[in-house]
Each structure stands twice: as structure tokens, then as C-alpha cells.
């Protein structure tokens, strides 16, 4: 039994072959000419539908339809001091409409469609197309109708063709969000002639067709789609609906699913990918310090992280208990542990009555263990109580450290907290059924006016009213605010709603993390949008 020379040589040859194969695997040179005009974005999620209104459509689809479809109007953008831009709900311009007339009473909007606007197939955009698209947004079995109803769009009767390329939209009451809502992904304009060819009696709004096909006129056209893997788009060179009629810079967009965050980070850092907006929060400071890629951090004023009390079960049906918990939390330590303080605080103000009607804003809540203890005793729990704090597995990266701090701080007022992590689908079900006593979740609003937050997150019966809180005064005021045209009255109402919510504390507003986009150094123009996805039309190289 000898290990002879020949065997040794064979083993060596095998090793050499393997090494050679790695060397041969070096990437082929990318075509440098088009590479500069190509944007490669890597993301953790998937796009499961070309029509974002589909039931079950993923968030990544919002960014897609903003680029493949136009809307009647579009929100503007404003620069942010830290670099980049953010969306501007107060500055709305026409997109597919070249002019928008608003009647003096605010009940009628008239949209004049751009004369030279065409669909991807070259046919002109007509008033019938716009009417059909608007009808679809309030009638189809999709995610669009509940969103449209947030600004009083509920029936096809509200949309009327009043001339060639002119469509009139009627509102029952003057609604603050009427135009803003027509700028959201769900209000996309569809080539109705094409869509109707594929509509059936079971599916009059061509939902099945549009899921896998496009019938739009937006700035980009989907060239290939491998669901769950990648999507490639090319620029629509006939697109004229941009700001000042300008075409976007990038001719080609590649959107690729790369599930592992660490891989996404190294792709962008090595310059093989150009953009990523969903890296792990802990990776971003390191990338910033290595300075091989650019980090654009933009405050997300329309989102929040909150700690929720189920106001429909004991002990959290008692506002004193809720306030005691809120007063016991170590806000700064939690913010530092969860997000390295990269974001905006919604705590730490010193006022007791809101100074203005902005929401969310830093609220008058701070840690005060003595008062917390006193309140808990007043509520009938002098010896503390026991409860369970729950959060979704997908949030563990930042909630794990925060939960440990919360547990420790509540322990100091005699509250024993058990921590429970659950899969996302499971926690969703428990929230809807209101079976969790105490948990954390995220919220965001497409149309971040204070009344919208209060309507969505502080009243109603949907999942988004996480705490299940019902306060007749706030519910009534949120409805009134929505329709009021008097700014002073609106601010008064909002101030009052903030005060009540702070006193009753259905959930504790914590903070909003920055939107952190990591991109190649030569990319500029990055804009944070309300839908929290990338709009490629904004971006430039060089």
C-alpha cells in the first residue's frame, strides 16, 4: 500500500484544473458603450406583476409602474440638505395632462391630455383611455379602489369625457388629496383599446392580461421579465410627459433580485451594480466609511416605527397603562441600538400641547420612570404586570437590540416582558385578528398629510389601525380635516388630534429610519418617493 508518484501527479493535476477553471471564469468585458447608459439595480424583493394594482402585488411593483405607466399628474420634488431629493406633495404638475383646471369650489377638476401623447404601440392617448383607466381604478377587483376612496373617488360616474382629449373629474366634497391620489401608482393610465382586446366577461378590466403584459405609455418599456429573478427595461424614446419634456438619462434598466444583503452590498461597492436601496442598516455605515460607493440618506417623513398597544384587551384598554409604558421607554438608547440613530426622532420634544399641526413630528414624550411607576400604580398595577412583546422575523435585525432595551426598562417599573418573534405571515394574521397585546410595526403613508395618518392609523377597522383604538372625537375630526379648505382650522384640528393621541397613547411613535440608497459615485439625482421605490426617470450618470 503505497501512495506512488503517479497518484500524486493525478491529484495535483485535478487541483490545477480546478484553479484554471476559476481563472477562466473571470467576467467577460461588459460592453462599455452601453454600460454607462445602463442602470443595474439590485434588490432583495421580487416583482410578481407588471400591474401593481393586482391583489397580492409586491411593493417593488410600485416603482415599476411609475416608470412603465404615466398618471394624469405627478408630484414634484425638492432638494434635501443631506443630498438627493424628496417628493413634494404640495407641488403637483401635469404628467399625461398638459393642463389641469380646478373649479373655484374645488369640486371639479378638468384634465387636458397632452396633444402629442402616445402609448407604447404608437396610438394616441384619447379621453376614452383616461376615462377607462379611472373607471378601472375604482371598479376593478384590485388594491386600487380602497386607495382611491381615500380621496373621495368611489364611482365611475365621477369621471366624464367632456371633449376631445378632455376629461372632467367630479368630487362630492372638496378633498385635499384629490390630485395627490391621482399621482400614486394605482392611478395609472392604461391603453384601453389594447387592454379591452384582452378583457373577458369574467375579467372586464383585463387584470389577468395586464399582470403579465403592458399597455402603458410610460418612460420605460419592459423588455424581458423573469419573475423572481430579473426584469429588463428599455427607454421609450417617444416619451414626452417628463418635466419640460425631457427624456430620462438611462437607456436601459436592469432590476435584479439578489436575496442576500451582503452580496448586494459587495456588488454595489465593486461597481458591478449601480444602485441598491435595501441594504442591511448595519452595513451602510461601513460602506460610507470605505467610501467606494455613495450613500444618499433621505429622511422618510411619511413613515414611522411604532410600539402598539392592543387597546381592546386588558390591561391596555386602560390609557394610564399605555402612558406608563410610553414613559418607561429608553428612547435614545433604543434609537441608537436599532438604527444607529440614522433617522428622525418622533419623541423628545418638551411641549405638552402640540405647537403646530405637523404630523409626524417630534412629540412631547420622554422617559420618566417615576411618573411611569406612579401611573401604573394609579391604573391598579402597583406590583407591575406581565405581557408579551411580539415582532416579525423580518424586523429582527433592528428590533432585536431595541426589544432587549425595552424589556430591561419596563422591568424597572415592575413590568415583566416576554419577547416573541414570529414569521411575517403569522404576525399579519394575529394583527388583523387583534390577538397580539403589545408589538411593534412600521407604518407609511403615500399621501402624508396629517389627516391621512389619523384616518389610516388612528381610526377605522383595518389592520393599519394597529391598536384598534376608537376615539369618536379623533375619528370625526380626521374626517372633517380631510374636507376643510380653511388652513387655520385644519391646523387647529391636527393639533387637537395630536394632543389626544399623545394623552391616550394607542401606540408610541418612535422614529422613522432614513431611506438609505447606496449607489455608484457617478450617479446623481436620486429622489426619495412616497412609494419608497426608485424612480429611474430621476437618475443620471456623471
Amino acid at each position, binding site marked *: *500500500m*503505497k*501512495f*506512488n508518484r*503517479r*497518484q500524486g501527479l*493525478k*491529484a495535483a493535476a*485535478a487541483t490545477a484544473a480546478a484553479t484554471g*477553471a*476559476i481563472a*477562466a*471564469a*473571470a*467576467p*467577460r468585458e*461588459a*460592453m462599455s458603450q452601453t*454600460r454607462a447608459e445602463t442602470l*443595474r439595480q*439590485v434588490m432583495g424583493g*421580487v416583482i*410578481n406583476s407588471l400591474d401593481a394594482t*393586482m*391583489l*397580492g*402585488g409586491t411593493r417593488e411593483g410600485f416603482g415599476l409602474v411609475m416608470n412603465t405607466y404615466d398618471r394624469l399628474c405627478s408630484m414634484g420634488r425638492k432638494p434635501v440638505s443631506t443630498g438627493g431629493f424628496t417628493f413634494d406633495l404640495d407641488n403637483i404638475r401635469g404628467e399625461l395632462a398638459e393642463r389641469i383646471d380646478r373649479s373655484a369650489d374645488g369640486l371639479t377638476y378638468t384634465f387636458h391630455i397632452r396633444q402629442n401623447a402616445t402609448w407604447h404601440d404608437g396610438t394616441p392617448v384619447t379621453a376614452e383611455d383616461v376615462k377607462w383607466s379611472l373607471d378601472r381604478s375604482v371598479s376593478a377587483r384590485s*388594491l386600487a379602489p*380602497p*386607495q382611491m*376612496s*381615500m380621496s373621495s373617488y368611489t364611482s365611475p360616474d365621477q369621471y366624464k369625457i367632456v371633449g376631445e382629449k378632455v376629461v372632467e373629474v367630479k368630487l362630492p366634497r372638496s378633498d385635499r388629496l384629490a390630485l395627490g391620489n391621482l399621482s400614486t401608482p394605482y392611478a395609472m393610465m392604461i391603453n384601453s383599446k389594447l387592454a379591452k382586446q384582452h378583457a373577458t366577461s369574467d375579467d372586464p378590466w383585463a387584470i389577468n392580461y395586464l399582470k403579465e403584459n403592458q399597455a402603458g405609455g410610460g418612460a420605460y418599456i419592459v423588455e*424581458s421579465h*423573469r*419573475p*423572481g*429573478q*430579473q426584469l429588463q427595461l428599455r427607454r421609450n424614446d417617444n416619451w414626452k410627459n417628463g418635466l419640460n419634456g425631457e427624456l430620462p438619462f438611462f437607456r436601459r434598466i*436592469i432590476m*435584479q433580485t*439578489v*436575496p*442576500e444583503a451582503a*452580496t448586494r452590498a*459587495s456588488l454595489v*461597492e*465593486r461597481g458591478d*451594480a449601480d444602485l441598491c436601496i435595501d441594504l442591511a442598516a448595519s452595513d451602510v455605515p461601513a460602506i460610507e466609511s470605505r467610501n467606494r460607493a455613495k450613500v444618499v440618506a433621505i429622511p422618510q417623513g411619511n413613515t414611522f416605527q411604532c410600539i402598539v398597544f392592543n387597546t381592546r384587551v386588558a390591561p391596555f384598554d386602560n390609557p394610564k397603562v399605555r402612558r406608563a409604558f410610553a414613559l418607561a421607554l429608553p428612547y435614545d438608547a433604543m434609537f441608537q441600538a436599532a438604527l444607529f440613530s440614522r433617522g428622525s426622532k418622533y419623541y423628545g420634544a418638551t411641549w405638552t400641547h402640540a405647537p403646530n399641526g405637523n404630523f409626524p413630528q417630534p412629540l412631547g414624550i420622554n422617559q420618566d420612570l417615576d411618573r411611569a411607576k406612579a401611573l401604573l400604580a394609579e391604573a391598579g398595577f402597583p406590583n407591575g404586570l406581565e405581557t408579551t412583546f411580539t415582532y416579525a422575523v423580518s424586523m429582527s435585525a433592528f428590533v432585536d437590540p431595541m426589544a432587549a432595551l425595552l424589556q430591561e426598562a419596563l422591568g424597572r417599573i415592575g413590568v415583566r416582558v416576554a419577547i416573541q418573534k414570529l414569521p*411575517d*405571515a*403569522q404576525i*399579519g*394574521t394575529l394583527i*388583523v385578528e387583534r390577538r397580539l397585546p403589545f408589538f411593534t410595526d412600521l407604518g*407609511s403613508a403615500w399621501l402624508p398629510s396629517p389627516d391621512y395618518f389619523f384616518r*389610516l392609523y388612528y381610526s377605522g*377597522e*383595518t*389592520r*393599519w389601525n394597529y391598536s384598534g383604538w376608537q376615539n369618536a372625537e379623533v375619528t370625526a375630526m380626521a374626517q372633517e380635516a380631510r374636507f376643510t379648505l380653511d388652513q387655520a382650522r385644519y391646523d387647529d384640528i391636527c393639533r387637537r388630534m395630536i394632543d389626544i393621541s399623545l394623552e391616550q397613547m394607542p401606540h408610541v411613535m418612535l422614529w422613522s429610519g432614513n431611506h438609505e440608497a447606496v449607489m455608484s459615485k457617478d450617479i446623481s439625482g436620486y429622489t426619495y418617493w412616497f412609494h419608497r421605490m426608485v424612480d429611474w426617470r430621476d437618475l443620471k450618470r456623471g
Partner: protein
Amino acid sequence: MRALKSIGLRVGRRLAASVPALLGVVVFTFVLMRVLPGDPAVFFASGPNAGQAEIQMIREQMGLDRPVHEQLIRYFAEIGRGQLGRSMTTGQAVVADLRERLPASLELTLAALVLALGFAIPLGILAALRPNSALDHVVRFVCSMGVCVPTFVSGLLLIYVFYVVLGISPDPTGRIDIFAASPPDITGFLLIDFAITGDWAGWYAAAGQLLLPACTMALFVLAPLARMTRASMLAVLGSDFIRTARSIGLSHWKVIVVHGLRNALLPVITITGIVFSTMLGANVLVEKVFSWPGVGSYALDALLGSDYAPVQGFVLMMALAFVVVNLLIDVLYGIADPRVNVE
């Protein structure tokens, strides 16, 4: 001709015998998915403002508003039509998804298996030739390392060394360079497709993409294969017929490979079958790390979203794969050792 017919009969009988097991798997997975907490309708109705009405609509769309036994009957009817339902996660028919992704997983698994066998068998033989020598200890150490390091760690490590630091490996995102033209879609196995079309540049690129994930997986399964080869070789090399072969003056090489290895292969083939089936399902971490569009990561995503249809389809497919692999292994037994009968 008669031999072929008898093999066909045997194979048919084996397949028929597996039908009850497959049925059991379908029913079990079906029930299990519905018993697990988590409502897919809630998970997928997460658009802004989606309320109870939208949850109900999704439930109807997925057929979840019907009683469970009716859902099961409908599912069987669907299987009868060659369909497995629709995935909410990707928005595609499950059959189409699996057809697209199974070749990716198979190609990766097979490449990893070939790589692993290519190293494990020589290493196992070397270790068996000199038990308890330094060489044996080195082999044992390499195998232990491979098994101890989880695949996502070794995967990330390989990416870090060969992609991030050395820059000689292509970016670890899927089966083909993203900027290259899309591959010819013939069999779904890129290496075969590129070879058929004669696109050797494409073939090298695809092989380059395959190499790191295949190495990661091969490292992980090196241990069972090499250890099994070693143990089995040790037993065989100590037996009488080897001594006889040596005594009649056969060459060292011939004694080991022809007389030793062939007799030692049976347990190795068995373990290869098991390793292969496990790899096909368990390479999900490798698929995630390398963005490999395979079935493992597909099933995991579906499971996290309580997306019933893809999980059921995946389990059924894996059960089928297990049946086929076992059959194949039995046939290989016959080739390796004619004394073994498939029956």
C-alpha cells in the same frame, strides 16, 4: 430485448408502488400548510389601505373560502390536469416556475456532486490506503471543516475571496452574466444548451458562474462521501480476494481500482443517492447567497409567505425526485455488482 422488457417492467412496478406514497405526501403537505398559523390572504393584502374586503377577495381568488376537503378535491383535479396552482409570490403558475427553476437546481446539484465525488473518492481511497497516517488526518480535517462550516458561511467566504478581494470570479448573481444576451432555452441546463448551440464563450461564462456555488455545496457533502469511501475501502482492502489478487502479481493500481474500488462502491452509491436528494432540497442557502434561481429558494420564499401552492408543488416534486433517484440508484447497483437484484 427480453432484458429490456424485464427492466421496463421492474421500473414500472416500482413507479406504481410509489403512487400511494406520493398521494400521502400530497395530502400531508396540503393539510400541514393549512394547519400552520399564518393566513396567506393577509400576507398578500398588504398594500396601503388594504382592508377586510381585499383580504376576502384574495381568499376567494386562492379558493381558501371553501371547506378544506373541497379544496383538496380541487387540488387533486388540478394535479390531474397537470397543474399545481398559482404562486402568489411570483404571480406565475407553479408548474411554469418549477419548470424554469428545476434545471437550475439540478445543474448546480449535479455539478456539485460531480465535483464532490471527484475529490471525495480519491481522498477516501488515499485515506484508506494509509489509515491513521498524516494523510488520513489531513483528509479527516478537510472533511470535518467542510461539514462544520455552514454553506452560507463558506459561500460568503468564497465570494469574499474570489469576487471581492481577488476579483477573478464573476459577480455572484445567478446563472449567467446579467449583461450578456439571454441564454438559448433548450433544456434549461445552460452548460448543455451552450454546448448544443456551440457558443463556447457563453459556456465558459456559465461554467464560471456555476463554479463557486458548486464548490460551496461540494465542500459541504465532501465528508459523507469521502468517509464512506474510506470505510468501505478499508473493509474491502482487508479481504481475502485482495490478498489473492496481490499474490498472483496484479499491479498495485489494478488491485485497488478494479478489485478494491468496484467492490467498495455499493455503499458509496447508496450515500450518493441520499446526498443528491438532500442537496436538491437543502441547497436553499447556497441558492440565496449566490442568487441562484433554483427551487430551494423558491420554496423557502413561498413558505415564509404562507403561499400554499408553491410549497405543495415543491414537496410533490421533491418526492418524485426521491422516487426517481432511488430507482436510478438501484439500477446503478446492478451495474456495480451484478449479484444485486433490483427486486
